[in-house]
């Protein structure tokens, strides 16, 4: 059960080796006895990541197989994950790939891959998870969106479209959960200096995985539902969204 201070006793991570997911787990500072189930494609990568996350020794971590693109298997996967954890207090959903924009433009199969991973597969899994949380009458879902989903940009519109879809989906799902005891936290990080963006030039107001983790942990403990990171990008997002297309196009990047 979630406690009065936002403490979670059981956590399911969709994208168990994710850097932002693990930064979040670390920031949550789970208490002794908590149980974490990491779900993803590579048990080795997840186990290595869990070791790196430096969780308290009495936090139990296990891994399970989940591929976002395997939509046919999601219902069974979610059922099994919930059965294994018993109550699920918190679902983190940081799975995602950045993909290669240029390749996607010439190889639509790659674009499909990005969309299936970031939007179709993840959203489908979240639907199953949300239904079970509703039944439970409590729990928190965390969805990792991105500034890239805000507007379609030449440089990354294939990835951006997947995040735009996810973002709209999550915002609506969150609204549909009002009054059910379940809360959805929609995180909107700006540019995060991390594994996914290694080698890329940092955008203005870049943030870190640690900052994202801390912001998510604070939102889980509190009442926030939409969480821009850093907080200051919130107003920037609003402005970007409102800019006329002609001007928006001329922005660098």
């Amino acid at each position, binding site marked *: 059960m979630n406690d009065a201070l936002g403490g979670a006793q059981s956590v399911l991570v969709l994208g168990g080796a994710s850097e932002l997911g693990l930064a979040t787990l670390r920031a949550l500072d789970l208490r002794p006895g908590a149980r974490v189930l990491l779900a993803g494609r590579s048990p080795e990568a997840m186990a290595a990541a869990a070791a790196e996350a430096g969780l308290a020794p009495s936090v139990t971590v296990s891994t399970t197989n989940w591929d976002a693109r395997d939509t046919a298997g999601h219902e069974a996967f979610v059922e099994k994950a919930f059965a294994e954890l018993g109550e699920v207090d918190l679902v983190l959903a940081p799975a995602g790939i950045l993909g290669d924009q240029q390749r996607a433009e010439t190889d639509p199969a790659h674009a499909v891959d990005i969309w299936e991973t970031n939007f179709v597969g993840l959203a489908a899994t979240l639907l199953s998870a949300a239904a079970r949380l509703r039944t439970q009458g409590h729990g928190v879902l965390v969805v990792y969106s991105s500034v890239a989903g805000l507007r379609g940009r030449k440089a990354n519109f294939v990835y951006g479209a997947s995040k735009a879809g996810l973002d709209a989906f999550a915002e609506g799902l969150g609204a549909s959960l009002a009054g059910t*005891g379940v809360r959805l936290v929609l995180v909107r990080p700006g540019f995060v200096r991390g594994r996914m963006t290694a080698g890329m030039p940092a955008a203005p107001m870049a943030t870190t995985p640690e900052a994202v983790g801390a912001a998510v942990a604070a939102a889980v403990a509190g009442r926030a539902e939409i969480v821009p990171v850093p907080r200051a990008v919130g107003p920037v997002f609003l402005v970007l969204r409102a800019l006329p297309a002609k001007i928006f196009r001329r922005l660098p990047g």
Partner: protein
Amino acid sequence: MAEVRPVADVGRAPVPRLLTGWGRTAPTRAAVIAPDGPAGPARAGSGDLSGLADAVLASSAVVASGAVAGSRPGPARGLIARGLGRSYGDAAQNAGGTVVDMTALTRVTAIDLAAGTVTAGAGLSLDALMRIVLPLGFFVPVTPGTRYVTLGGALASDIHGKNHHVDGSFSDHVLAFDLMTGTGEIITVTPGGAPDAFAATAGGMGLSGIVTAVTLRLLPVATSRMRVDTERVGGLDELMGRMAARDDDYRYSVAWIDTLARGASMGRAVLTRGDHAAPDELPAKAARDPLRFAPHPRLVAPDVFPSRALNRLSVRAFNELWYRRAPVRHTGLESIATFFHPLDGVGDWNRVYGPRGFVQYQFVVPFGAEETVRTAVTRLSDARCPSFLAVLKRFGPGNGHPLSFPAPGWTLALDIPAGLPGLVGLLDGLDELVAGAGGRVYLSKDSRLRPDLLAAMYPGLDRWRELRAKLDPTGVFVSDLARRLALTTGPAVGPPLAGR
């Protein structure tokens, strides 16, 4: 055995509702049913509760079958009784399951003036009971800091009052109660006739069944006024010294500590002790109506407080004023409402803590562990919690019921806003300190205890689990508190370790 009918037959259809405790933290959704005990004479004070029995049976059948719950809250996730929701945490809520609102079961079925006993539905509030029995020359044997608790809630928490050192806790004055068990039967429980069911229920947090009616021994009083000695005390050591020396001269005793006071005035407090006044102590006007009891109607705190409305400065100013206002030493008369229930004058005062709500932390440590009390007060005052007053009191002997909170020693209770940075670590640290000193925290106030400390705090836990299981073989009674602390089941065996 009753046939299984849908849960909707109880009173009216179940209503899905988000529920929290008084601290307004961790809301969860449940289907709320409200038996209203129609006029039928089936049981003293409980009316005809066959609809409720059906709900228990239906839930028990689904729970036993292991069926997966549907998309709406319902029977697969069990039931729990709820009174007036004055427990601070998650004791009277049941995420995804059914919550039985007991507050319509208020019928008083017997008052025996000669014996000084009353029998009433478990949903009757102490407020209503006082209004009935005070004019007859009786007071409730134990009252908490609010009158808005039900008889059922008082028994399930085995509540204590300012008179614990003299009179013990609520269940010590319960002569009998009716309990609907996990099989839907109602059994009448007396301390001598069914000691196991009594022990499992007194302090059992609603997990042994649904109390439908209670027979209570009342305290005869000659007036409705309190004679109160008030003393201002400069520091904690002096306070504990004065309490230890002279508490036993009074039926009621409690001290309010200013946790924001630091340095030399750390632990400064106002100590109030008293007893029911005799008729000849009342001024002439009051003596004409010595049993008058008419608490003022309540103001209601508006629901507009942001979480930061209470900060250290505003609370410090309040505490300072409160301390300065208290007389250095004074004896006077007070009304029952002023002496026992000062916060009841403002309805819904819990809203002042804003949308994130607050936790109440209450522990008891044995006599001899004064150092632990001192450390706790020091840590709380070092953390500069913007808390209004903390309450310190001495408990007398406990009653041995396995989950009953009171045990001989010092008990400290205070409210803390849930958003205070560092609160998780601060309270976890205090829990360890308290458990290490042989103490415990109060489950009716708890909303965040670590489950692994429970067994150390309540050594009777395993025994309680055995007694409880006999009354509820399928495990139909469950609450968020029970889930969070693995209260009835013991800790889940974790999945295998991976990669570490």
